């Protein structure tokens, strides 16, 4: 099986699971006792949050591996995880704002969870733009890997912010605290987004590798007229 087929299989499984999980979340799961139907945003918001954190932790691992091993494959995976993590975090903020308005009365509040997520989004988006501005592949890879390692210090802070400080944002739920009819679509969407994310990381890293090969290719000899 070629790597393209593996990526396509992950993407199809991911999209299938996301469609099924979203159907269950929108039409089958019961409304929440207090938040009513608005709580259905959870089935897309929570998997996006989990995957954003997982993808940024992967970015940290790939950045570290590049600095230790100096292998271009790790740099390509680093670039892929940065871009996908920024996309997921931007979506996370939008979904959260749409959940916040009917439940908190505001789209945005400078509370610890939201503020640390905003810092995470801006720092990783900054690293991504740094990569676009640097033409030298080695400098691009080294500088952005170092910046990713520094920015990753905020990722656990995002996760624990609701426990460490008083926050408008609710604490993490567990299967024991959530109705089983709500756990199923949440799990299906989480596994669906995980499968889709694997496919996206694979494809985005191939694009990064192809760009790096082009950047490092020796110039073609001039053809004499």
């Amino acid at each position, binding site marked *: 099986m070629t790597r393209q087929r593996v990526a396509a299989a992950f*993407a199809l499984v991911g999209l299938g699971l996301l469609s099924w999980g*979203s159907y269950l979340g*929108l039409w089958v799961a019961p*409304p*929440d*006792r*207090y*938040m*009513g*139907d*608005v709580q*259905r*945003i959870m089935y*897309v*918001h929570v998997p*996006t949050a989990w995957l954003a954190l997982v993808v940024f932790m992967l970015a940290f691992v790939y950045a570290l591996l590049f600095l230790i091993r100096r292998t271009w494959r790790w740099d390509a995976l680093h670039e892929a995880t940065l871009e996908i993590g920024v*996309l997921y975090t*931007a*979506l996370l903020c*939008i*979904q959260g704002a*749409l*959940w916040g*308005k*009917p*439940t908190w009365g505001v789209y945005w509040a400078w509370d610890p969870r939201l503020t640390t997520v905003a810092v995470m989004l801006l720092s990783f988006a900054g690293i991504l733009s740094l990569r676009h501005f640097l033409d030298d592949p080695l400098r691009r890879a080294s500088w952005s890997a170092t910046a990713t390692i520094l920015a990753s210090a905020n990722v656990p802070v995002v996760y624990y912010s609701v426990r460490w400080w008083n926050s408008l944002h609710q604490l993490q739920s567990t299967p024991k605290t959530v109705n089983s009819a709500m756990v199923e679509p949440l799990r299906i969407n989480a596994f669906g987004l995980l499968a*889709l994310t694997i496919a*996206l990381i694979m*494809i*985005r890293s*191939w*694009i990064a590798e*192809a*760009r790096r*090969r*082009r950047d490092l290719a020796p110039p073609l000899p001039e053809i004499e007229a």
Partner: protein
Amino acid sequence: MTGMIQGGWEFVWAAYGITGVAMGIYIASLWIRWKAEDKSE
């Protein structure tokens, strides 16, 4: 009065819709970039 938030489906549809459209655009952009790199190699 039950204490439950009434309505709010417009926020639910907006969250799912924006997420779906953004993911669709991103997947399409990956496809276009991949094909462009494939052609230039």
